[in-house]
């Protein structure tokens, strides 16, 4: 990516396109049906913006395959991390800090939140912004824990589970921006525990939108 200016531009363009494309589905559904279930169009857009920022934070702080820990485990790369003279968490956090990755989603994410908020008459007070940041932090921690729990499968089956975090990440990306209202209690509980995508969009959006 950092080889030359051309590579940087190409990378940002392609990454931006991929991320915009991944949002388009939910956006079009909300537009076509003026919302999804009891959620209005702008509430959905707010949730979409919030969920996009989770993607940004995951890539910001847990890039370089830290958010795909199964790859590191399966490929034996964790051994290299463990021969560094510092605690494992410190190595992972410093190696994972990659502020340029996913920054193409940062601006669209903020724009979506701002756009939705302006139609929902949100008051951007310091308390509300602090709550937004706390929620974003908590959602990111839940997402990375979820990735680590599934990624640990690679300790038992390095070859076959090496890419398991790609599937779990994809699952999170696809489901995190959908409202869970109207689903059966069993499904809702499952999506808040075993597969906690509800905490990456739905629950925080409810809390922040009141």
């Amino acid at each position, binding site marked *: *990516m*950092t080889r030359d200016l051309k590579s940087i531009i190409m990378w940002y363009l392609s990454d931006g396109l991929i991320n915009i494309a991944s949002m388009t589905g939910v956006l079009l559904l909300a537009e076509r049906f003026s919302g999804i279930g009891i959620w209005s169009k702008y509430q959905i857009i707010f949730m979409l913006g919030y969920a996009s920022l989770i993607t940004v934070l995951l890539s910001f702080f847990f890039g370089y395959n830290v958010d795909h820990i199964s790859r590191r485990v399966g*490929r*034996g*790369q964790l*051994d*290299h991390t*463990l*021969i*560094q*003279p*510092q*605690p494992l968490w410190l190595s992972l956090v410093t190696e994972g800090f990659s502020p340029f990755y996913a920054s193409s989603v940062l601006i669209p994410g903020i724009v979506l939140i701002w756009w939705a908020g302006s139609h929902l008459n949100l008051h951007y007070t310091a308390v509300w912004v602090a709550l937004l940041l706390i929620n974003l932090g908590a959602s990111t921690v839940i997402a990375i824990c979820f990735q680590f729990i599934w990624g640990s499968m690679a300790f038992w089956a390095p070859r076959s589970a090496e890419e398991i975090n790609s599937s779990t990440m994809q699952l999170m990306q696809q489901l995190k921006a959908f409202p869970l209202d109207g689903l059966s209690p069993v499904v809702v509980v499952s999506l808040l525990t075993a597969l906690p995508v509800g905490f990456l969009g739905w629950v925080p959006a409810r809390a922040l939108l009141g």
Partner: protein
Amino acid sequence: MQVDRGEIVAFAGPNGAGKSTTIKLLSGIIAPDSGKVHSLGVNPFTDRVNYVGRIGVVFGQRTELWGDLPVAASFEWKRVVWDIPMDRYAIVMKQVRELLDLDEFFQSPVRELSLGQRMRADLALALLHEPELILLDEPTLGLDVLAKKKILGFIKQLNKERGITVLITSHDMSELEQLAGRIVLIDHGKLAFDGDFQQLRKSLTEKRTVIVETTDSTPPVLVHAMLVESISNRHQYTYDSAQITLPELLEQISQQTEILDIGTHRPPIDDVISEIYAHWRRWANGYTFTQTYFRQD
């Protein structure tokens, strides 16, 4: 198993014997299920953070270099993470760059390096913080003869000049024999042999090879020796030196034909090891291989 400071120990065994696991135990990456590991006076697993600052590890099949970045960036990264003082860093960098010829590719991205170049850079990186012990897990895997020679020579020199303790695993026995005086063989996680290469050869086999050139193209028929091949008037035999001596064999030959030339050699170390591994495979079911088997001499 005990390794003294300043020793070079070759660590070998068939696939799945536990060589890499032992390296991981000694690196503090994993803890033993039973038994104890002590290295440089500490428990590698519980004292990992401090301990790994005193050792260097090279995993031959994987690299510690940052793939997307120039080689130089990995060295700079190591200086910072290992907190190497600038003056020491400059001295060691100068040494490794010269001895391992890093200059030709030092600014190239790691992805563009050949296997030999990558291995040299990995070895240099492992030595940057002047470790007291280096653990090398198949460091010459896939390298050409020249690259192997360069790396082995460097390890030997390092051991001689700085007294660094070296534990090296490889499947190439002749390479290990060049490097180390002592060889430790393991099988299924158990110590199977611990001694020098001479002992290893002697303890397992007394097999010898003799090539005789005679005036006659018909190979002489010998007692206690087996004809391996016969090309025109050159005949190759194998024999067990415990059963018959070389002079006795030559006497048998001279009774049948005239000897023009003779040559003898012992089996290469790779053949000896292959024989050991074959034994282990044959006796895998129910047979426990013990050290005494090897040490009967």
